[in-house]
């Protein structure tokens, strides 16, 4: 309380009474928490932001999403329209990424491919998410015999070679975007269901769930309010990692000739089309789709890794 500017040594006799006054009690402030409390999600976001690589990934994905939506619209060329006089042109001011053997603009097709890749990836992840949550949540919460039977089913399905099943379905159902998504989710939900179940199994024995039960909460409330929110971390990580898997699978299938049919573009189709012409030096045909598939997978992978660290409560400080 001393005023630093007037500090001087005073003898005890000269100490005056008016120098003293009772300290003002700060009404109600003493117990308050100075730092605002961090919710789980705020804390996770704070930690994710520190992970530079994950943020670069996120930024790229936002950019990609923007270009996937607006890229084909902004471009003066159409995705499918052929322009034979301008075939196999190297990248120039008119065609930023060059043109293919039918004179189609690679720039437009690349962003159209982004649309398809993102759509397939996100849809596959969402459907996996819903099936996985219902199946895994039910199995884990019920426990006992139900759980044992449901898990045996999962173990058998887990043994199926996924890409073969997908190829088989594609052959029978005919190549289309819907088929790809269906085929990917037929086997894809299993991983998600396992994760959800493992989490639910662990959390349902915690005290706060018992407390909730003792207050007479209904099963639906316990699952919805207590269990699921606490399992979201690993689920989101799993979803982020499902997307690159689905994007790869779509490209893989398109590359085998089972994906989106020409003249529409997907990254896999474009890479496949570029295969016969790489010897003739048309590098842009291969480079752009290959570059963007790799970058997208990279972005999702680093973001998934970052989320994994950020959402892990054990690493919370």
């Amino acid at each position, binding site marked *: 309380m001393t005023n630093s500017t007037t500090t001087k040594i005073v003898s005890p006799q000269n100490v005056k009474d008016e120098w003293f006054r009772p300290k003002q009690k700060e009404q109600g402030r003493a117990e308050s928490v100075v730092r605002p409390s961090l919710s789980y999600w705020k804390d996770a976001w704070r930690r994710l932001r520190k992970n530079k690589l994950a943020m670069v990934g996120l930024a790229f994905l936002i950019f990609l999403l923007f270009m996937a939506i607006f890229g084909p619209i902004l471009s003066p060329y159409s995705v499918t329209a052929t322009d034979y006089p301008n075939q196999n042109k190297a990248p120039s001011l008119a065609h930023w990424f060059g043109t293919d053997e039918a004179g189609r603009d690679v720039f437009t097709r690349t962003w159209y491919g982004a649309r398809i890749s993102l759509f397939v990836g996100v849809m596959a992840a969402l459907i996996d998410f819903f099936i996985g949550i219902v199946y895994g949540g039910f199995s884990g919460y019920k426990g006992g015999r139900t*759980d*044992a039977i449901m*898990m*045996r089913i999962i*173990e*058998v*399905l887990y*043994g*199926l*070679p*996924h*890409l*073969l*099943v997908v*190829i*088989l*379905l594609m*052959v*029978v159902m005919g190549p289309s975007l819907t088929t790809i998504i269906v085929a990917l989710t037929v086997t894809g939900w299993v991983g998600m269901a*396992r994760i959800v179940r*493992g989490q639910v*199994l*662990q959390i349902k024995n915690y005290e706060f769930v018992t407390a909730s039960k003792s207050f007479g909460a209904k099963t639906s409330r316990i699952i919805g309010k207590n269990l699921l929110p606490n399992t979201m971390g690993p689920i989101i990580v799993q979803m982020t990692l499902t997307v*690159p898997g689905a994007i*790869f699978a779509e*490209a*893989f299938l398109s*590359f*085998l*000739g*089972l994906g989106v049919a020409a003249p529409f573009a997907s990254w896999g189709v474009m*890479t496949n089309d*570029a*295969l016969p012409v*790489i*010897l003739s030096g048309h*590098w842009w045909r*291969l480079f752009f789709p*290959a570059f963007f*598939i*790799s*970058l997208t*997978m*990279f972005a999702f*992978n*680093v973001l998934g*890794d970052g989320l994994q660290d950020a959402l892990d409560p054990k690493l919370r400080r």
Partner: protein
Amino acid sequence: MAKYIIKRFFMMIATILIIATLTFALMHTIPGSPFDDERTSNPTIQANLEKFYKLDEPMHIQYLYYLKSIVTFDFGPSIKKPNESVNELLARGFPISFELGMVTILVALLSGVTLGTFAALRHNGIIDYTAMTFAVVGISVPNFVLATLLIQQIAVNLEWLPPATWSSPLHMILPTLALATGPTAIIARLTRSSMLEVLTQDYIKMARAKGLSPVRIVVRHALRNALMPVVTIMGTMLAGILTGTFVIERIFAIPGMGKYFVESINNRDYPVIMGSTVFYSAFLVFMLFLVDIVYGFLDPRIKLHRKEGDA
């Protein structure tokens, strides 16, 4: 242990049965018969063909014949190339794919484990960062993209290695490299993280205190336990690699299973598609079974683990 093996064995049979049934059901939901082209328009020939392929029998009988063909390992003739049986195609293509797959998994294991171990030993050092950067890149670049880039750069531009086919060890380098990079990256990351964990354990400190050489500590004590997670993913990874060969074979013009499989897809040659799918799946499921058994032997905790019912 015996109980565990038996349980796994029945699980394997169930999985194969599901694949077989799925394949059968899918085969019969395809509209039209395989003999719908003009070449066989004569109704008598058509009927004879259907009799030959037992397509005139009721569905459940056909299903039994089908199961028999799987058990006896006889998938019948190809429809588009009637003088060749599916078995012959498998016998010709599979050994090559198998070779490519095995070389790949060996390369991936050796380089992945080495890379991961060194990264963990030099945690946060230059080797660690380099290895992990490589790992993220390796996971991100699809194998068919890598394969095309390798052909373009190393085979065509630099002319260091032959761009295609499978005729000498020199020819094997590029396809193996393309196929092995992804698995190598995954194994390296896995080895690194489990190695980092193992290295903090008390028994490692103990080994150090005893004055064992660092090499011996890492190889004999740490690596053994650090490799457990790698063994766990071997099965699914093998499946990924062996299906991955399809695309790699196509790019490098290697006459393996992938070539016949893609050909049969394009020709819609159903017996070949179905036969090779069932065969391939059965093989993969069997490998998964073997990996599980090996894992059971390596980790005595596994039985306890399974009994509790959580994975």
